[in-house]
């Protein structure tokens, strides 16, 4: 099948092109989509390249939050003084995604639209209670990540930005897959005036929050508050690099580290 390549210059055109395509795909950094096509796991009829859309590669500090445009590359988030000042844990997370090549191509919008169960950003969005802004609506992170590679997005819906509230303290701890560098387990802990949110990626079929951990930390934001909690391994992933028991154990190890780091960093 021949592949049609489009590079629209407006968001509206991009959405229209996709809606009109037989089996179209948006292309951002291409770090997930292109390998998938090379392996012949995806064979789209149309690629709608988002790279020329204006204003989507941006980072901005607003009154009560931080806005990151969908086309902002991981390396730019990692290196941004604005992000480092507002949510240092987010910059650090971006700086540990994959390898330099991936960080210079991959985008936050692509990462969350793809929703790989081992991706890092979904944990940040969920723990920070972020809002996904699209060309047609706003979606709370809690409603956005639905399942393995599944999100609330319509097929022709374009993520334009992510809006993050600023936490009092936050930290992300990750056990990397030694091979791919994706998260075998990643835990994002964010402390706000009104509570604590904790999101876990890599361990299950989709990023998730742990109510047990959040409650324990809400009553005392310190590692020892977690001593009595254990995670049920039965719902977790097992693969060549980590079995479910190990993942369950590592969720707690990493959460404690993240809490300690959040306290120390504040």
């Amino acid at each position, binding site marked *: 099948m021949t592949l049609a390549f489009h590079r629209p210059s407006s968001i509206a055109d991009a959405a229209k092109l996709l809606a009109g395509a037989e089996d179209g795909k948006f292309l951002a950094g291409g770090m997930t989509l292109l390998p998938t096509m090379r392996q012949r796991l995806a064979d789209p009829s149309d690629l709608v390249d988002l790279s020329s859309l204006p204003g989507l590669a941006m980072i901005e500090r607003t009154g009560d939050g931080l806005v990151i445009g969908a086309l902002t590359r991981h390396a730019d988030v990692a290196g941004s003084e604005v992000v480092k000042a507002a949510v240092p844990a987010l910059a650090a997370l971006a700086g540990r995604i994959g390898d330099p090549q991936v960080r210079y191509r991959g985008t936050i919008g692509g990462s969350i639209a793809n929703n790989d169960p081992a991706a890092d950003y979904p944990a940040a969005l969920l723990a920070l209670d972020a809002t996904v802004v699209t060309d047609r609506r706003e979606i709370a992170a809690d409603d956005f990540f639905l399942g393995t590679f599944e999100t609330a997005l319509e097929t022709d819906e374009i993520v334009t930005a992510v809006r993050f509230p600023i936490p009092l303290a936050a930290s992300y701890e990750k056990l990397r897959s030694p*091979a*791919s560098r994706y998260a075998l387990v990643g835990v994002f802990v964010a402390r706000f005036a009104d509570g604590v949110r904790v999101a876990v990626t890599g361990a299950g079929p989709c990023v998730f929050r742990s109510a047990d951990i959040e409650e324990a930390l809400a009553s005392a934001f310190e590692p020892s508050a977690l001593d009595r909690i254990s995670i049920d391994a039965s719902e977790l992933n097992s693969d*060549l*690099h*980590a079995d479910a028991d*190990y993942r369950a*154990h590592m969720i707690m*190890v990493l959460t404690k580290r993240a809490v300690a780091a959040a306290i120390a960093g504040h």
Partner: protein
Amino acid sequence: MTAIGIGQAPKRKEDVRFLTGRGRYVSDIKLHNMAAAFFVRSPHAHAKIGAIDSSAALEAEGVVAVFTGADLEAAKVGGLPVGWGITGSDGEPMKEPFYPVLAVGKVRHVGDPVAVVVAETPEQAQAAADLVMVDYEPLTPVVSMLDALKPEAPLVHEDVPQNLCCDWAMGDEAAVEEARQKAAHIARIELVNNRLIGNPMEPRAAIAEYDRARDHYTLYTTSQFPHVVRFLMGGLVLNIPQHKLRVVAPDVGGGFGVKQFHYAEEAALTFIAGKLCRPVKWVSERSEGFVSDRQGRDHVTEAELMLDENGKFLGLWVSTLANMGGYLSTFGPNIPTNLYAPLLSGVYKLPAIFCNVKVVFTNTLPVDAYRGAGRPEATFVLERLVDVAAIETGIDKIEIRRRNMISKEEYPYQTPVVVEYDSGDPMACLDKAIEVADIAGFEARRTEAARRGKYRGLGLSTYVEACGLAPSRLAGQMGARGGLYESATVRVHPTSHVSVMIGTHNHGQGHETTFAQIVSEQLGVPFEDIDIVFGDTDRVQFGMGTYGSRSLVVGGAALSKAGDKVIVKGRKIAAHLLEASFEDIAFEKGEFKVAGTDRAKTFAEIAGAAYVPHDYPLETLEPGLEEQAYYDPINFTYPGGAHFCEVEIDPDSGEIELCAYTAVDDVGTIINPMIVEGQLHGGIVQGIGQALFEHGIYDEETGQLMSGSFMDYCMPRADNLPSITISPQVTACAHTPMGVKGCGECGTIGSPAAVINAVVDALKPLGITHVDMPATPNRLWAIIRNAQSTSIAAE
């Protein structure tokens, strides 16, 4: 314009083209009217092949032809040959089933090629490959060796009962039994040497061309040994006369053994180019390499070390299952036998050794040499056992090694397993390593780590390797079907520039620099004026290629012999020009001199005169200055050394950090210290890869390769590694011309045991004596958790 000789460290000549992107690799070559091939490969580990329907593929856009095993069979194409034949302890030769170029009747591993689609472009060939309908009838695969040997196991080859290729042994079983009776202590170990996938940076590739006018074939291929490919493929598979076949291996981006075999793709492409009278190209994809490159290691071993009450070694008993995969590859059966058992004495006096190896077929990728090839496996068994003995007897790990080491004075040393070490000084290596690695400070480092909640461990491995493959006489006795000498031609041009034609192959090792230094030293010719030519059977007279740390040891020796002949010839010319007798001409510092006088001719003058024989006495002096030598070593060489590794393990998570690595290696005379250091770094990192990261894993039920991409197969990376300290120790080899021993594989041989010994040492408080490779965080965490729960249960 200077001579740069032995011991200096000029920057590598070849790096200018590599670092500026001007290397010329097989995939860079584009021939007129070239078609593209794509291999249709088996998705099953074990299946009967029924009908193959290529009709839809043939209709697809751009498709030129489709070939299957039946086409090759009809043309009487031979099977892929094995270069070594081993014989079982019962006197039976190994079982050597037919290895078809394209599968016939059955597929025996995932990735086994069943058809080739040729099209105008690679994309068309790949797309059409999906349309080749192969009627597979899946059979139960045998995946693990233990299963393969069971009586009820399915057979990989119908004519190989119990999947047993050969039941092989070396050494004296009765003597070991006697040692067992006398022993005060027997240390025992069961271990797995994990399967590795080589993954050179450049994937394999080939282009075949047929010139109908000259009835002549050319194969461009990513090979470590083009002359051997010409012989094996032309002589044994395709029946192409040697003078009608040229094999070119241009720049090759890494080999590590993966490219030292004759592969099915080479033969298939050459066959097809002849049939179509069109050049055909194939470039492996990375994921294709995972299921079509030969793989390495894969042993299951039990071993026992017998000691007397003073910790002296009395005997060693080793029993190994070695995986061959689905077919016998070029050197396959030789690796876990002849390159394994003779290394089991290590640097120790071990009076009795017995080693049994069962060589087994399974439905996995064929296994053959991978950097180190047999010797890392042997070192791992021995050095792990020595550590187990140290733990169990309470003798310090350094002390127990000292008590048993061969001392410098005891060389040459005959081991009970065939080989005689010509030279070495393992004690000096160990002493130096102890100092460089600051072993005296280790306990303080361990205490400090414990304060941070970390387990710190110190691992030591000594090793010896037999390399410089190989003395043909000895190799012949061990089953080699060819010789293992090397050849070099030194061509001095009239301008005194020098071209060296050599049969080894440079694919990253720096030969163009090292060999030029040898010539520069020997002839006094400027380093820049020397070119090393390799990798083309039409330009280089003959050769066995590069593997087994042989290029400098055997090729460099041939080169220096050829250089000696050039000097002799130069003296003859000088004698004529200077009207002196040949005996009176000495060659020194680039000049031919009449002894005791100041009459002399420079090397350049002689080179010029060699080609202007206006007044030559032609009956006694030929024009020209070009000489050739073949060199066959009289023994292997035996580099060796001592490696120390320090690790820290987080007992909470099993995460492991390599904190320090020190290597003291004796590689004999060092030609270029920078290159030697690079070779050691690379080798050590590959060994660390095996110890901590790499694992070719097959699904036990289906035989699918689970770690079939870089998403799951973990290569070591810079940020996994400490800065490695290399500190050489030199004893010259007693029998090679320059005293060199070879350094290509040392690092890979010493390091896995050093790393795992460090891991086990770190976990010593838990009473653990062995950890299998790779020591991943998950594995370490599970071990720590089990040990803690058993100790809690015991309390």
